[in-house]
């Protein structure tokens, strides 16, 4: 969309099989996907469609058994700070305060202390948790924890933020507020975001492009570009039309499977 020379992320015919209790399971087959710098891509699909597997392959937590996953044209060899992951269960370090959770990445990468301090304070105010900077994760609400998890990835200069149903465990109000905050951060920083969700509405609200996946074996079914102007109104007729179309694609697929 913006930088057209090399895609940030490129999946070439990526497949993933693994063994579970002696049975071979095909989690993902033939996934092709190109994501450009600054794009906001949402992946939706029923459970078992391989959307989390796809994200974990890009994160470097899983190796593809077929095909290739590339970042900036180079094969992904393992987890690294240029791809930050935001987990549904937060994955914060419970023994570190908010401040030190955010500082974890920069310290691990050996940034000088003064720079770490600046970075941390900047991101704490970005997520509005100044008053909770010295609180431990168990003292925070789900929404606050997820803000910290996002800040932790941003503070580490990630190019791509991978989000695996990050707002799935939050209540509706908190989720809406975090969606807005995420979009604001995304627009301000020019990040590339890949966001897994099972909510059609969330996908349309957030994404430049929605990738529809289907199960058994998990694969990419179709893609849909969302050109609605932002901030999007979830009750507008054109929003609804897209919702209906995506819903049709998801259910078609389920119906076909049942038949």
């Amino acid at each position, binding site marked *: 969309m913006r930088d057209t020379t090399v895609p940030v992320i490129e999946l070439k015919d990526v497949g993933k099989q693994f063994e579970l209790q002696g049975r071979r399971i095909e989690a993902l087959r033939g996934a092709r996907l190109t994501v450009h710098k600054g794009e906001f891509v949402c992946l939706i699909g029923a459970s078992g469609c391989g959307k989390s597997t796809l994200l974990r392959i890009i*994160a*470097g*937590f899983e190796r593809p058994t077929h095909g290739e996953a590339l970042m900036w044209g180079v094969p992904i060899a*393992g*987890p*690294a*700070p240029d*791809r*930050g*992951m935001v*987990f549904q*269960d937060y*994955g*914060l*370090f*419970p*023994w*570190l*305060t908010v401040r030190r959770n955010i500082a*974890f*990445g920069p310290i*691990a*990468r050996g940034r000088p202390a003064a720079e770490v301090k600046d970075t941390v304070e900047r991101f704490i105010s970005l997520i509005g948790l100044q*008053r*909770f900077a010295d*609180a*431990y*994760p*168990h*003292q*925070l*609400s*789900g*929404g*606050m924890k997820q803000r910290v998890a996002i800040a*932790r*990835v941003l503070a*580490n200069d990630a190019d791509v933020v991978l989000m695996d149903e990050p707002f799935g465990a939050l209540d509706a109000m*908190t989720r809406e507020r975090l969606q807005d905050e995420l979009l604001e951060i995304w627009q301000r920083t020019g990040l590339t975001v890949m966001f897994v969700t099972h909510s059609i509405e969330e996908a349309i609200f957030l994404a430049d492009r929605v990738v529809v996946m289907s199960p058994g074996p998990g694969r990419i079914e179709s893609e849909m570009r969302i050109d609605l102007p932002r901030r999007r109104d979830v009750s507008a007729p054109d929003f609804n039309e897209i919702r209906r179309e995506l819903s049709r694609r998801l259910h078609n697929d389920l119906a076909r499977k049942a038949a």
Partner: protein
Amino acid sequence: MSATADIGPAADAAATDASAAAPAPPVAAWRRARGALLALALPIGLIVAWHLATHGRKYSLIPPPSDVAIELYDLAFGGIYDDAYSGTLYVHLLASMSRVYGGFALALAVALPLGLMIGRIALMRQLLDPTLQLLRPIPVTAWLPLAMIMFGLGPRSAFFLVFLGAFYPILINTIFGVRSVDPRLFEAASMLGCTGSVQFFKVVLPASLPAIFTGLRLGLGFAWVVIVVGEMTGVETGLGAIIMEARQLSRTEIVICGMIVIGIAGFITDRLVVLLGRRLLRWSPSHA
């Protein structure tokens, strides 16, 4: 709490926490006094029962509490009986404490790194775990004769037994702690740029600290149990030694004094570990 309006559920939770921790002063004082009274009720009752059962009986083999109290004073400060035991308490206490803490420290120094490695490195687990599990059911006290052969009669055997007694609780709990670290935290660390052996110090150690502390408490408890057995043969000083010696001399009040001192020393040590744990584990909802 002014935070409630703009922050939501966590602020509510924080508010309830705060009010639970700091109620109005008179209420808090009453609550603390009530707790102390309830805690003291049983020991006082036991002492009264002991007194009633033994006081004024000429041939009671168990001395009444008042005799024990006088003996304890004499043992600690002297000036009453002025016999061989008067004023020697601190010598024995110090001797036992040095063995307990020395053996415990050595056990910690060996069991902690070993537990971290067995928990995290499959090769270490395969190499060491079967042997350690096979040796574990052997009661520490059964090692005494062998220890006396290997280390000679005397304090070194006691030291070895304490080491052995504290070793397994620390080891087992450390392994358990490491094995139960949420795998998510390793993923989080590695995507943030913390990989390889650094994860030992940045993730494995802090994440398993609660379990390690449980091991420390159990280990220290065992150390005090074992010290008495270790000091019972061929050792001149130590609380175990005077208990054994006083038994042979039928000075039962000294035996009981030794028991009381061990109880108090063990209790204080345990409190210290708990306090240290509270400081280091402030982050853990089950310890704070």
